[in-house]
């Protein structure tokens, strides 16, 4: 069964304390692995797409990496404004653009 899981469910960091969020996937024929940020009461906002193992992408304090079984979102020296829920999603190679979302990791960065 195609599935995307994320860990931890919630993470509290002190400002400046670097850490990583994990996304594990079992998606047949993975076309792409996406990361989104979601603020409370709002829709998800796109961050990155990764296509192949070994690929990395960066944006400000965030860096996403991909292996054959999982993806990591590394947060370097986080700030309180990085507090949000981070969603991971896997896209399947099917006729349609079906995407499977993980449950998300809720990140809180304490000043």
């Amino acid at each position, binding site marked *: 069964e195609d599935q*995307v899981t994320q860990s931890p*469910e919630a993470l509290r960091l002190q400002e400046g304390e670097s850490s990583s969020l994990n996304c594990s996937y079992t998606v047949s024929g993975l*076309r*792409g692995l*996406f990361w989104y940020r979601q603020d409370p*009461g*709002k*829709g*998800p*906002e*796109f961050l990155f*797409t990764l296509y192949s193992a070994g690929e990395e992408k960066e944006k400000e304090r965030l860096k996403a990496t991909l292996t054959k079984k999982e993806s990591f979102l590394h947060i370097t020296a986080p700030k309180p404004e990085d507090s949000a829920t981070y*969603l991971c*999603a896997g*896209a399947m190679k099917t006729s*349609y*653009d*079906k*995407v499977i*979302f*993980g*449950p*998300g990791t809720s990140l809180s960065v304490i000043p």
Partner: protein
Amino acid sequence: DVKVTQSSRYLVKRTGEKVFLECVQDMDHENMFWYRQDPGLGLRLIYFSYDVKMKEKGDIPEGYSVSREKKERFSLILESASTNQTSMYLCASTNSYSTDTQYFGPGTRLTVL
């Protein structure tokens, strides 16, 4: 910038009512999606549409129907609302030739009493 709008941010309905949720995108995207989001369950796909008047069931279509009469508009219909349909509903769209990014609307928080 792509913009996806949803008709209501908050909605309160009674059990048995017919509920319409509307989504409009302004980027001429081919594909549109309706998800619901519940704590601990993530986003689950209800229905999607890859063209006008075309629709496909997602993972949890029971109790819902959809309508896509115009390319920019995708409606989700709850024929007879039930309390277990209380949720956050999110609409998204993608360009069929650039399926990397799903652009989401702000969401509708629906409460069924």
